[in-house]
């Protein structure tokens, strides 16, 4: 079976349990089991070859550009781990089927479990370190889901997050380490990397890479000081603990150390970092385990301790130690999984995992007792069980290892840890199963059905078989895997019970006897232990995360505090700074242009402009006054445009000015007319400083630009030359707008159209909310005068509006050749209608309105677009124009140009947009029942006699009068 399929099967299998859960829990579990079984079978097909020392590979180029490829290989090491992962996985699936309660979503469980299984298989089969990283992080993610499976338990959530944070961060460090490694070697393929020991260890980046990769391994394998997450992960359902913390997740770190052993090990750095960490972890875990009352916590710390043991072995860097490590991996997986499962059975049956509440179960649960006892004795290192064998090997290796020239440290501490290990193992047996029967179990306990005990029983069987017959049962696998780790000639070793009276044997005896002694003294030791100050890892971790979160919150909220003026100030200051930097790092030439002289009129204009601008700043709290002053500025700016040969700009500016001012007045009607003092003097000074610097920047920049000639001929020379020839118009600005750069104009009218739409939509939204009630009941800023539609205004408008329309038409028609054009015409016409609005009021006017603003905008855009599209019929690009002349005797010739049609679109869009915007704003002031019957309030000619009340002739029918 292809390695791809073996790696993919668990993932494919993950889909089904979730879907099949509707068909029942058995279906779901069977699907999960089947997937594991198929993968396991596939693995076993390769067993003969692998045990012969061959390496099975499968390669697929996923992302060759990066070197991230789906390359898999199966060697002895991978085979050992894959077998454990899949084999124990099947047992867990069986066990979980009976362990989980009716309320637990089992489909989800199996999905997560298989995802995790797939990730683990992926890690051990990867022949590409980037691919390995992918699976590595996947185990963090899937274990997060598994640990947090019981989402209603706070402990589960926190444990899951802690596990993710710790192992995930290690994984991130590993990314860096792996990238460095790949960089040194020039490939991310493991098989290549493993050939390059010399290059790697000679590289100056060896130590960083080593540290980063080990960080990943240590966090994953719960090595001190990252060991604290593991006990908290025990909040997960027991099948999860049994799986993750015996054979799989925590072994991933071990696996990787073993995997990289050929290229990373053998240096002093490796020895001191890895061996020391392993040693410390082994001791610390063992000591803590003895004092844990929670069965699973006890097992968790024992796991920490045993992982430390394996790590230490790998850290020794000797070949025999590596063999011992491999062997202990197998042994630990078997007895620890069995222990977790038996602890789960106890929990399941008695309702508690607290050792203090247990005891005397041997009579009530004999099967469980048998399983647990054998497994625990193996863990304690009692012959003839498998735990004894590998522990012997460990002690033997420890005895021969010196640490900083000391012959004592490692053997001493190893014995010390073994002693504690024996003690907690004995405690597990004696305090749970031995002793008198109790009356106060939460549930009356009895042995479960075979569904629950079958899995641990199989494992315990292995424990015994390996112990008794290690060379044949475990020998081939251990050899094959050790060979893969060592990468060369295997050292001489023999897996057997009796090696003679070796130092290890004495050390073992000391450990077992000492362990019994410790168990006897447990009560007293516990008292001492409880008085010792010991840092609670969870509290520290929580505090760190809490500080991190608070700090993040403080930084985030402090930085993004919603004060836009600060945002703007930062942006402006930054812009000026960067701009100045860019300027200062370049060179500037001397002025090349003779400046224009400044006669009196521009000087007066300048005085007025600057005076008005300063006055705006001074009086800006008086909003109406500042509007008036803005009008002055606008007037002078447009005069300046006029003066400086830009008549089109002047026309546009002044018309836009008026409409803008009307919009502002309309909105000011609903807003406060005064701005209160909000800023301190300090703030004002700061703002003034920023403003002045920015002003100097803008002014200085334009001055520097204006006094120099263009370095190249500008493209507008072409526009001047071709405006008439190619565009048919003499007003070059207009021809640019509707022809050369008509596409800009197309975008521009769309902007305007969108603006109107937005305004309309916003008005709808506001008016359909409860703002409406506020608007209806609001009082005006100040008392209103009578006579809202004075006769003179109305009469003058009757004449002015048609004339204004005429002017609009004129501006439109001449635009192509003289200052003007569709845009200005649109504004002028809009203002003409606005005049009518102001004269006779909104309701009266709107009733007589014959066109719809939405449609006007739409037509405008469509006509403009259609003009552009018309060119397609001649197979010319969008907006290609044409023009010509018509001759109707006796009239003179008329020019026609498709650009005029485009300009018509502009005209309509502008007209519609301005009117829609004004219309939307006007609706804010609308009051129900105001039906204005007449265009003017006072009209002595009117037939109807005046109604008493409101205005003489006004029919302001408010409320009841309608």
């Amino acid at each position, binding site marked *: 079976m292809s390695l791809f399929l073996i790696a993919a099967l668990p993932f494919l299998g993950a889909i089904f349990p979730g879907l099949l859960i509707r068909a029942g829990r058995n279906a779901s579990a069977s699907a999960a089991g089947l997937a594991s079984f198929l993968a396991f079978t596939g693995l076993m097909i390769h067993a003969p070859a692998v045990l012969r020392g061959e390496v099975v590979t499968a390669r697929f180029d996923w992302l060759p550009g990066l070197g991230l490829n789906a390359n898999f290989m199966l060697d002895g090491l991978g085979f050992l781990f894959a077998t454990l992962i899949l084999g124990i996985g099947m047992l867990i699936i069986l066990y979980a089927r009976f362990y989980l309660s009716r309320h637990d979503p089992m489909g989800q469980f199996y999905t997560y479990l298989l995802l995790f299984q797939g990730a683990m298989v992926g890690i051990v089969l990867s022949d590409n370190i980037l691919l390995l990283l992918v699976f590595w992080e996947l185990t963090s993610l899937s274990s997060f889901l598994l640990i947090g499976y019981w989402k209603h338990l706070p402990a589960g959530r926190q444990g899951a997050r802690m596990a993710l944070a710790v192992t995930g961060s290690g994984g991130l460090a590993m990314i860096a380490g792996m990238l460095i490694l790949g960089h040194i070697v020039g490939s991310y393929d493991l098989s290549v990397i493993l050939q390059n020991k010399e290059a790697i260890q000679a590289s100056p980046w060896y130590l960083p890479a080593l540290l980063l990769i080990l960080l990943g391994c240590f966090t994953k394998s719960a090595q001190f000081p990252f060991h604290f997450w593991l006990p908290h992960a025990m909040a997960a359902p027991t099948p999860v603990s049994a799986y993750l913390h015996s054979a799989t997740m925590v072994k991933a770190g071990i696996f990787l150390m073993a995997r990289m052993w050929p290229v990373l090990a053998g240096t002093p750095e490796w020895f001191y970092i890895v061996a020391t960490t392993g040693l410390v972890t082994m001791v610390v875990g063992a000591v803590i385990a003895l004092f844990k009352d929670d069965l699973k916590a006890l097992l968790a710390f024992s796991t920490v301790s045993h992982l430390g043991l394996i790590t230490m072995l790998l850290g020794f860097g000797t070949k025999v130690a590596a063999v011992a490590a491999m062997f202990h991996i197998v042994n630990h997986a078997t007895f620890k999984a069995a222990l977790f499962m038996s602890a789960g059975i106890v929990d399941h049956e008695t309702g508690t995992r607290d050792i203090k509440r247990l005891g005397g179960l041997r009579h009530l649960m004999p099967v469980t007792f048998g399983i647990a006892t054998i497994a625990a004795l193996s863990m304690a290192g009692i012959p003839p069980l498998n735990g004894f064998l590998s522990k012997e090997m460990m002690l033997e290796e420890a005895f021969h290892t010196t640490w900083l020239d000391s012959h004592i440290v490692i053997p001493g501490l190893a014995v010390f840890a073994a002693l504690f290990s024996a003690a907690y193992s004995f405690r597990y047996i004696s305090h749970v199963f031995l002793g008198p029967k109790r009356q106060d179990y939460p549930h009356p306990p009895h042995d479960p059905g075979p569904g629950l005990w079958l899995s641990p029983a199989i494992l315990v069987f292995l424990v015994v078989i390996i112990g008794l017959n290690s060379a044949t049962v475990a020998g081939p696998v251990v050899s094959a895997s050790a060979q893969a780790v060592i990468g060369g000639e295997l050292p001489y070793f023999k897996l057997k019970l009796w090696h003679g009276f070796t130092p290890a044997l004495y050390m073992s005896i000391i450990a077992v006897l000492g362990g019994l002694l410790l168990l006897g003294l447990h009560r007293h030791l516990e008292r001492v232990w409880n008085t010792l100050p010991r840092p609670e890892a969870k509290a520290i971790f929580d505090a760190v995360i809490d500080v991190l979160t608070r700090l993040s919150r403080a930084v985030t909220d402090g930085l993004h505090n919603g004060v836009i003026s600060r945002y703007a100030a930062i942006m402006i200051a930054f812009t000026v700074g960067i701009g100045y930097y860019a300027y200062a790092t370049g060179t500037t030439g001397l002025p090349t242009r003779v400046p224009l002289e400044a006669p009196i009129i521009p000087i007066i204009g300048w005085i007025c402009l600057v005076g008005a601008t300063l006055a705006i700043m001074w009086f800006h709290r008086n909003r109406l006054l500042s509007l008036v002053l803005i009008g002055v500025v606008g007037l002078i700016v447009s005069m300046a445009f006029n003066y400086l040969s830009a008549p089109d700009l002047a026309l546009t500016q002044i*018309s836009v000015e008026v409409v803008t001012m009307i919009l502002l007045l309309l909105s*000011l009607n609903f807003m406060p007319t005064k701005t209160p003092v909000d800023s301190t003097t300090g703030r004002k000074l700061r703002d003034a400083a920023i403003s002045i610097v920015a002003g100097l920047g803008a002014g200085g920049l334009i001055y520097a630009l204006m006094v120099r000639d263009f370095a190249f001929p500008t493209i507008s020379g072409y526009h001047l030359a071709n405006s008439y020839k190619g565009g048919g118009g003499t007003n070059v600005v207009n021809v640019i707008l509707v022809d050369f750069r008509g596409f800009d104009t197309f975008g521009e009218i769309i902007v305007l159209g969108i603006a109107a739409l937005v305004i309309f939509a916003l008005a709808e939204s506001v008016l359909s909310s409860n703002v409406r009630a506020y608007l209806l009941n609001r009082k005006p800023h100040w008392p209103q005068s009578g006579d809202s539609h004075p006769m003179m205004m109305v009469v003058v408008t009757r004449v002015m509006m048609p004339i204004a329309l005429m*002017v609009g038409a004129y501006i439109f028609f001449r635009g192509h050749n003289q200052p*003007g054009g569709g845009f*200005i015409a649109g504004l002028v016409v809009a203002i003409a209608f606005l005049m009518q609005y102001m004269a006779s009021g909104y309701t009266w006017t709107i009733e007589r309105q014959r066109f719809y603003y939405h449609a006007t905008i739409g037509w405008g855009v469509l006509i403009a677009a259609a003009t552009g599209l018309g060119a397609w019929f001649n197979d010319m690009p969008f907006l290609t124009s044409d023009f010509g002349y018509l001759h109707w005797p006796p009239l003179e010739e008329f020019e026609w140009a498709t650009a005029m049609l485009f300009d018509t679109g502009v005209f309509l869009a502008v007209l519609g947009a301005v009117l829609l915007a004004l219309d939307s704003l*006007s609706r804010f002031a609308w009051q129900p029942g105001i039906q204005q019957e007449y265009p003017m309030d006072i009209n002595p000619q009117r037939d109807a006699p005046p109604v008493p009340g409101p205005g003489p002739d006004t029919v302001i029918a408010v409320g009841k009068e309608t």
Partner: protein
Amino acid sequence: MMDYAIYFTFACFGAAVMMCLWRIITADGVGTRVLALDTMVINTIALMVLYGLLLGTEIFFEAAMIIAMLGFVSTVAYARFMLRGNIIE
């Protein structure tokens, strides 16, 4: 001769514009300010026509005309705002 007259008139209207600005800034009521702005607009129209006269061009005519038309609209809008609050009712 004519040039001197033009410059004289320039000076007169220039001074007028500045007086209007002075009035806008210093007046105590908004009405006067609006009035001053309106006057300023009218003076500006004169200045523009004058400038066109000086240069012998008609290019400023449209601007002057549009300003004459639109100055009215904005003045009315200001006044309506002060009288009624709502300028389109």
